[in-house]
């Protein structure tokens, strides 16, 4: 029917990231390095091979990105602090059971300092605003057990203003509904126990409509399907308890067909070059669809479900039952 998921190959792929890659391309993505390590590590956890990356080296890398002036983490050594890198750092340290390395009060202060009068969060002090950064803030504060310091009404108020006529959410007030922005808004609301702000049936339907005839998912009407939407769309549907509205078999087949079965990793669509971003999001989608041999992924936090549950942070999402290996 199609290929199975080649876990050992993808584990090797993640391990090889950073070795012998095209020089300039690797360097040009330095601004994403912290995120890339988080994506890689989460993928390894879902595949049951967390130890494929050295724990001490990972922790050392994260700590080398600490921006002591700002009191938070940058994407790379010598890069300025940024909320997205800070979230990824927290997530990595949590997965490596090293959260005690963080100066929590300083990081909390940094995060809260980025909230704007409108309720949205900036990514850093340079001021770019986006609901992605609002999600980073809510997620990070939650993982650090400091969610109580957030002005919830103000934060929820901004998300509410990003709700569009189709039930979806955009990056900013007035912006078009886009599946990735939908996920960050709905996940933030889930963490804040405010899913009452979502038109769940309308949005669930809009999300179900993302599935195109070849089984893949797109991010907006009339756009191309892409494996990463297996995460943005599917995770949101999981949070809204509507995964059954997607044709699981067709989506599974689509994700599997986007594997690079020569070098490992998963691409945005069949035939394209893989990258770690599409690898974790493809694996995340497969996990939520009950693919055998994978660990559960928490769709709200995009992290191992058992870890989130152990912190008492599991929300009421539902995935498809895990099929057994035959």
């Amino acid at each position: 029917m199609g290929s199975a998921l080649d876990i050992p190959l993808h584990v090797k792929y993640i391990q090889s990231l950073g070795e012998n890659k095209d020089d300039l391309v690797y360097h040009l993505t330095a601004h994403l390095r912290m995120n890339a390590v988080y994506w890689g590590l989460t993928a390894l956890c879902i595949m049951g091979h967390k130890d494929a990356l050295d724990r001490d080296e990972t922790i050392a890398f994260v700590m080398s990105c600490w921006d002591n002036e700002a009191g938070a983490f940058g994407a790379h050594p010598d890069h300025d602090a940024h909320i997205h890198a800070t979230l990824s750092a927290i997530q990595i340290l949590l997965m490596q059971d090293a959260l005690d390395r963080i100066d929590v009060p300083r990081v909390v202060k940094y995060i809260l300092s980025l909230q704007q009068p409108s309720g949205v969060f900036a990514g850093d002090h340079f001021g770019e605003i986006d609901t992605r950064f609002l999600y980073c803030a809510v997620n990070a504060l939650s993982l650090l057990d400091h969610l109580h310091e957030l002005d919830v009404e103000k934060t929820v108020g901004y998300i509410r203003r990003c709700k569009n006529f189709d039930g979806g959410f955009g990056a900013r007030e007035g912006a078009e509904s886009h599946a990735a922005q939908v996920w960050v808004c709905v996940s933030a609301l889930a963490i804040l126990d405010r899913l009452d702000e979502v038109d769940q049936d309308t949005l669930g339907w809009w999300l179900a409509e993302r599935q195109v005839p070849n089984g893949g998912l797109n991010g907006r009407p009339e756009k191309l399907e892409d494996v990463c939407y297996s995460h943005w769309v599917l995770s949101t549907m999981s949070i809204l308890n509507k995964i059954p509205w997607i044709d699981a078999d067709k989506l599974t087949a689509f994700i599997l067909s986007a594997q690079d079965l020569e070098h490992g990793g998963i691409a945005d669509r069949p035939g394209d070059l893989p990258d770690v971003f599409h690898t974790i999001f493809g694996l995340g989608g497969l996990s939520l669809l009950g693919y055998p041999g994978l660990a559960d992924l928490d769709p709200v936090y995009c992290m191992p479900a058992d870890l989130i549950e152990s912190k008492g942070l599991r929300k009421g999402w539902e995935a498809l039952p895990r099929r057994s290996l035959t």
Partner: protein
Amino acid sequence: MSDLFADDPEWADVVPIRQYENVNPIAPIFYSEEYKDATDYFRGVVKTGELSPRVLKLTERIIRMNPAHYTAWQHRYKTLIALKADLEDELRLMDDIAKQFLKTYQVWHHRRLLLTALNSVDVAVLELEFLRDVLADDTKNYHTWSYRQWILAHFNNEARLWARERAYAEALLEEDVRNNSAWHHRFFVVFSSGVRLGDEDREQVLRRELSYAKEKIALAPNNPSAWNYLRGALEFTKTPFETLTSFVEPYTTPQSPNAADVVDLDNPLPSEQAELPCVAALEFIADVYEERGGEATSKAVEIWKSLANERDVMRKKYWEYRIRDALQSS
């Protein structure tokens, strides 16, 4: 002939700072000579806090090689402000970078900062023109569109900024009726950002918008954006879906070979090439029946069954959910 800052006597007084040498194997660094040189010197001027014209030259070189280098953008902006540089000149200088790297967040955020600092409607007018150019290349670029929406909301000038937006969205839909970004923009302009000049008669506006959506649906019935727009307009104005039944019905059956002799402008018929029935129309009519309730519920159930088993099998479970949900409530 070297282009490197290391070989440029003008830069002899700056101490370049190498990237983190004893590198952790989890994040090894590889360089191209030119990029390494530029970023070494960049770290040097960041350390000394220099905000000078040559820093503008340096940061420009970096962002042209790597537009995602957000620290370079930040330092560039600080430098521009410190030098009281001509920000309109800066916008023009950045135009080709915006066109080349239109999928990079920083490119747009920089322009937004410049627009905010300049605080000029004249500049905003020019910027909207520039964005038309950019969108001509990539008609659905998410960053560009949300930046456009920000400009409109921020300056909020009816006569000079808002006035031509609906026509602009319409022109784009003329080129590609399936452009979801353009549909979204139209809704943004007409409904969700207050009342436009000339649109004070809200009933007239609704008639116009419904007529527009219907016309576009007739042109290409299997277009989710147009149907979402139609539904959105009805919901926003709290207009019952029932009122559109006679328009929608012809879209729920296979094409009738005998088109009506009289053209009903209020209820444009599907174009000849249309693939009918269309799923969105069936969905719409089923919603109308469900809303009616009573005996009409079974008609809705029939439609949902046909969708589940025949017309939209991919979303079978969704249609089965609608059936269960309706039968439970009745």
